[in-house]
């Protein structure tokens, strides 16, 4: 991406400031101008709450994933120590901003930043991310920006209350186990009920009693003759495999106390809130980068900022969207800022200056209004489908994308496709697939509970391309076991074949298996 600085087209305004120091007045003035321009581009946002914080406070914000209030847990302390250590030793700089999806949308600005950086951050976070949060379908479906802060306060109070009543350690154990499963706390295809703190609080007690009653029903231990008959008919529970492990545990784990179920629910609800973030990284960061770039350039065109300001801005911008090549020592995967920024920029280019190639590949985009096209692309996709839909040959060429096939059993890597005519489609599909959640995380579902026997829980792992589970798996199963209270099994399938079985607590197979072997050979 080459960036050129042309002389201002229409310098109608005096620069807001020529100083690199920020002041509150200047921040407000910048925000006002950027906001006005953003509205011209139809960026629809929640109100902004811009908070100036120190670097120490930024580290605090970091370690709580930006949540302004959070319950206490050692893992956040670990995160904090890690950030602090890395920062103090100069291993990392702090991000210039953190923004969270709430209404008002809270953006943190560090006091150390220069005016140009603050302006970049305002454009990026307060208008880029903010409009994404408000309009992308995943966020609309999964999160309720107006309720999240209240819910976090409720969660914090509830956890603290449990700690008082049952002890920090007991609470910590449950939270540890829930955190191990927090990526498995969403229904990917079902629309969730919106979070509301007031409702949660009001219903919580009621729910406790009701839930316990339900669980008791499920686990009633004296089977009647009638039920025995039913049992034959309805051999499996759950009837359908369940992908939302935390939900299933919250509703059905036999031994959990009501307050423990509530903790499971809290972790689940908060994980659900972050679920869209995990699925729209490229789109979200790309959108914010595209807009800070476009908004700043518009400001320059109108004379609000001078050349010095623009040089500083462009230098930060190009380091944000820098993509190291695969063989660089700085390479750590595809930079979502770069990929997203390139796709959105290219969409605009295709609308305004299409080539023959574009006409062939994107007949429905070429010549359309670029703002309509970009807003539509931002609102209606997640990373996987966004890439599949919009990654153009030009972007693949610009980024020199190529596709490596790695089979465990082969001594060689194979280059399957590169950025050329026969390869475009394959590279694009492979990259889209890379952002598919089931490619990123193992597909694990609850398939069976032994209701009348040992009450054991069985999970099924469906392998993707025969990729096995990592070595933390047994540790996680220990956590599942803690929540479930009875034996937990995990079966790993490649296609129809069960490749590996795990069991928690570990099975004493050594005693049984040899004796069978023995019998066979007698």
């Amino acid at each position, binding site marked *: 991406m080459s960036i050129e600085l042309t002389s201002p087209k229409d310098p109608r305004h005096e620069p807001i400031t020529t100083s690199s120091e920020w002041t509150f007045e200047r921040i407000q003035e910048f925000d006002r101008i950027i906001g006005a321009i953003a509205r011209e581009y139809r960026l629809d946002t929640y*109100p902004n709450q811009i908070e100036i914080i120190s670097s120490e406070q930024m580290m605090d914000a970091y370690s709580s994933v930006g949540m302004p209030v959070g319950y206490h847990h050692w893992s956040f302390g*670990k995160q904090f120590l890690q950030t*602090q250590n890395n920062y103090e030793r100069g291993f990392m700089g702090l991000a210039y901003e953190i923004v969270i999806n709430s209404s008002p949308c809270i953006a943190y600005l560090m006091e150390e930043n220069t005016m140009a950086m603050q302006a970049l951050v305002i454009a990026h976070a307060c208008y880029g991310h903010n409009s994404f949060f408000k309009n992308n379908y995943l966020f609309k479906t999964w999160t309720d920006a107006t309720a999240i802060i209240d819910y976090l306060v409720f969660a914090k109070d509830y956890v603290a209350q449990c700690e008082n009543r049952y002890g920090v350690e007991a609470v910590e154990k449950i939270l540890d186990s829930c955190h191990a499963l927090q990526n498995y706390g969403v229904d990917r295809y079902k629309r969730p009920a919106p979070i509301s703190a007031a409702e949660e609080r009001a219903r919580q007690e009621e729910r406790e009693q009701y839930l316990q009653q339900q669980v008791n029903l499920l686990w009633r231990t004296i089977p009647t003759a009638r039920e025995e008959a039913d049992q034959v008919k309805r051999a499996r529970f759950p009837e359908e495999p369940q992908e939302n492990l935390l939900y299933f545990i919250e509703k059905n784990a036999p031994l959990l106390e009501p307050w423990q179920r509530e903790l499971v629910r809290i972790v689940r609800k908060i994980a659900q809130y972050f679920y869209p973030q995990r699925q729209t990284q490229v789109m979200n960061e790309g959108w914010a980068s595209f807009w800070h770039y476009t908004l700043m350039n518009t400001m320059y065109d109108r004379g609000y900022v001078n050349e010095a300001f623009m040089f500083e801005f462009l230098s930060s911008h190009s380091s944000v969207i820098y993509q190291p090549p695969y063989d660089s020592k700085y390479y750590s995967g595809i930079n979502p800022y770069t990929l997203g920024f390139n796709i959105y920029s290219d969409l605009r280019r295709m609308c305004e200056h299409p080539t023959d190639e574009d006409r062939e590949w994107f007949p429905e985009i070429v010549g359309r209004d670029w703002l309509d096209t970009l807003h539509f692309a931002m609102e209606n996709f997640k990373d996987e489908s966004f890439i599949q839909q919009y990654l153009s040959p030009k972007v693949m060429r610009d980024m020199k994308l190529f596709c490596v096939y790695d089979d465990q059993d082969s001594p060689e890597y194979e280059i399957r496709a590169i950025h050329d005519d026969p390869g475009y489609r394959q590279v694009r599909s492979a990259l889209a697939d890379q952002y598919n959640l089931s490619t990123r995380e193992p597909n694990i579902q609850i398939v069976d509970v032994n209701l009348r026997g040992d009450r054991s829980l069985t999970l099924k792992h469906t392998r993707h391309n025969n990729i096995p589970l990592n070595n933390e798996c047994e540790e996680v199963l220990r956590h599942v076991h803690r929540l479930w209270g009875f034996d937990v099994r995990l079966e790993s399938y490649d296609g129809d074949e069960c490749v590996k079985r795990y069991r928690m607590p570990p099975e004493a197979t050594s005693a049984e298996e040899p004796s069978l072997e023995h019998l066979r050979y007698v």
Partner: protein
Amino acid sequence: MMNSYVIDRRLNGKNKSAVNRRRFLERYKKHIKRAVNDAVNKRSITDMEHGESISIPSEDIREPSFGHGQGGRRTIVNPGNKEFVSGDRIAKPQGGSGQGGGDGQASDSGEGMDDFTFSITQDEFLEFLFEDLELPNLVRKDLKSMDDFVYRHAGYTNTGVPAKINVVRSLKNAHARRIALSGKSRRRLKEVIRLLAEEEEKDSALRSTALIDELLEEKLKLETKIGRLPFIDDFDLRYNLSAKEPMPSNAAVMFCLMDVSGSMTQATKDIAKRFFLLLYMFLRRNYEKIDVVFIRHHTSAKEVDEEEFFYSRETGGTIVSSALRMMDDIVRERYPTSAWNIYAAQASDGDNWNDDSPICQKLLEQSILPSVQYFSYIEITPRDHQALWHAYENVQASFPNQFAMEQIVDQGDIYPVFRQLFQRKVT
């Protein structure tokens, strides 16, 4: 319609993570303690006054989650192609599962190999260092506690007895009051003086004596008015306020006795100094009100301050009883056993005048040990024990609860021995 609010949060606390941080430290106490113990042995004596960097193997503190392991078949898209074309085959790097062009997964597991490193503060360092330790036989001597108070300064008040008047504060107030009340008059006075001067400078023909008289009169009036303001008024007065605070009833005094004679080598002294330093920090930490008496000796004993105790040098022979006798005297003079818990620690290389050791034993048994809670003796020597050790063994036999002795050979022993001597006794 669309509003942005800019809020300055910099004045809010920056320690939002403090609780989580403490939880983390609490959870990994075992690891941290191990690191702290190692650090103590490595550190120089002057080095206890700061925090420590702690490393924990990442394995031990990871938060597990389901994830993909190595293996299987993957298709990975990378940027920055230079020479590859479709169908190229590249040999995998030998020996090791390192995925050259790895995706996020590979870099995650690569990072997992490192240790998790972070810093703890000096306070936390000491807390971990001294956890589970306490002064043995701490008896509450509360005979005097009921009527023992100290007065502490606690700000100012506007009522009080004359003896407590705070002159500076009171005069400041008076000055401020005078300025406030006379402002208008003094402004006018200045004006009058200026007008007078103007008038007097005028040519005699133009000068109006009536005006001058009028001004002079007004000047006089203003001056008396200002003069009438009292120099100090009742409500200017401020008194020192003292608050009565009860003295803690756990008064304790710690005697540190050390041999600094010629037979003590520099290395031996260093070890002894370390032991006392540990002890001293331990005391300062556990008991807010505690006296420490340092006595060093060669052929004669001398009471010194902390600085001199640790950092000054002497030579000469050794008479241990001189220090014991001095301690005994100090106890009698300044630390009545009814009000003080008395502890003592002695460090030596075991050298003593042979004739002196029985005297030491007698002194300890007859006059010192009956009045102290705990007396610990460390002998820093790799050699065989001499008369002093054997004499002390007899003492230990007759006072097993009050007297403890240990041998230290090198620096590595200091902390374990220290812990042994001051371990919290489970009763």
